[in-house]
């Protein structure tokens, strides 16, 4: 009896550990987010939108690193974003450009990297110069509506001009027929 009790308790503990392993690797996918060797680079953005720490950094949709910290530059009022990049990706040209993008229409933000053509590669502590700010949906919609109004007014003006021209044309046509008679 005593032996079986101990055995069962041991089995219970093992079951708990197995559950934890499942939660860690199968459910939260722990292994893919912790590359062992990494290097850090920074970049200044005009606007990062809803970018958060731990948001992925991607080249062509492939995850190569993540955002490690976000702070405000007190002099230029730009957002200073730090990135951790896996050491395997050590062949990124130094003139690459970064842009804050959105997954889907309403998804979360991530940073896309478009490789440049320089032969000098990024290394620890470098700053990426070329950045594109996040597209803020509200301002985009505002812009669109404004554009729509302007177009509308232009259409009305065009119509007026056209109708006037038509009247002139018909007038001239009448004059022509009158003269003819």
């Amino acid at each position, binding site marked *: 009896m005593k032996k079986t009790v101990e055995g069962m*308790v041991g089995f219970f503990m093992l079951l708990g550990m197995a559950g934890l392993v499942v939660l860690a690797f199968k*459910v939260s*996918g722990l292994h893919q987010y912790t590359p062992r060797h990494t290097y850090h680079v920074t970049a200044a953005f005009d606007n990062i939108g809803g970018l958060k720490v731990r948001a992925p950094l991607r080249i062509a949709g492939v995850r190569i690193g993540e955002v490690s910290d976000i702070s405000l530059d007190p002099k230029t009022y730009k957002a200073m974003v730090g990135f951790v990049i896996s050491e395997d990706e050590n062949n990124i040209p130094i003139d690459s450009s970064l842009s804050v993008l959105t997954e889907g229409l309403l998804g979360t933000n991530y940073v896309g990297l478009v490789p440049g053509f320089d032969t000098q590669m990024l290394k620890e502590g470098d700053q990426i110069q070329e950045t594109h700010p996040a597209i803020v949906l509200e301002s985009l919609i505002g812009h669109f509506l404004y554009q729509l109004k302007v177009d509308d007014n232009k259409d009305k003006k065009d119509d007026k001009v056209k109708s006037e021209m038509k009247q002139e044309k018909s007038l001239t046509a009448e004059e022509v027929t009158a003269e003819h008679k």
Partner: protein
Amino acid sequence: MIFLQQLGSLGIRFCRHLGTSGLFLLRVLMRRTEISKDFPLLVEQIYFVGVLSVIIIIVSGLFIGMVVALQGYNTLQRFGAQAQLGQLVALSVVRELGPVVSALLFIGRACSALTAEIGLMQATEQLASMEMMAVDPLRRVIFPRLWAGFIVVPILAIIFNAVAIYGAYLLGVLWLGIDSGTFWSNMQASVNFRIDVVNGIIKSIVFGFVAVWIAVYQGYYATPTAEGISRAATRTVVYASVLILGLDFVLTAMMLEAW
């Protein structure tokens, strides 16, 4: 006037109970322990409290996972977002349902029994006779039960989480026909080990602590009659359940805000 008097006495009684239970917990945890003597008792209690609860935890976990998956699928389907089912189930189970439901099941399955057992020991004066034989009842009876509860509840919650997610996998992938790769990869992309899984386990540690504390205290200070023991068992279940649901809210608020 009488109403005010009653209210005051209620408040004083509540404070006294709180103080007694706190001192009781302190006294039990401050015992000097000898591993060679106490460990076998602890193992035995883990068997009674934990191993015997595994079946009910697995069965309920499976059903809860399946139900959440079915409900979630029905709603997500309207937006054409069935692929997010794994994420929905994993987050709701790991953050909320796992810790809370496993703690509630543990209260029903083990804590009520603990209270009744200790209460009966008190009523039949077994604890008093232990003291006569120079055996410390707090150390011989209470200590292993308390620690067994602390250890067991987080493990039960972990088992519950894993089984519930497997249940959702069974229903979503094998029955409703969601692609298995989408199911797992969406889940892995959205569940964070530190923020979601570890916080869930922290919750269940707190719940286990509170539930077993209440159970042991209610048993130890139960009125030593048949009616008193039944009342104590009822109180254990009610207090522990309500306190766990309340604490869950507080802990969730803390975790979402600060951590």
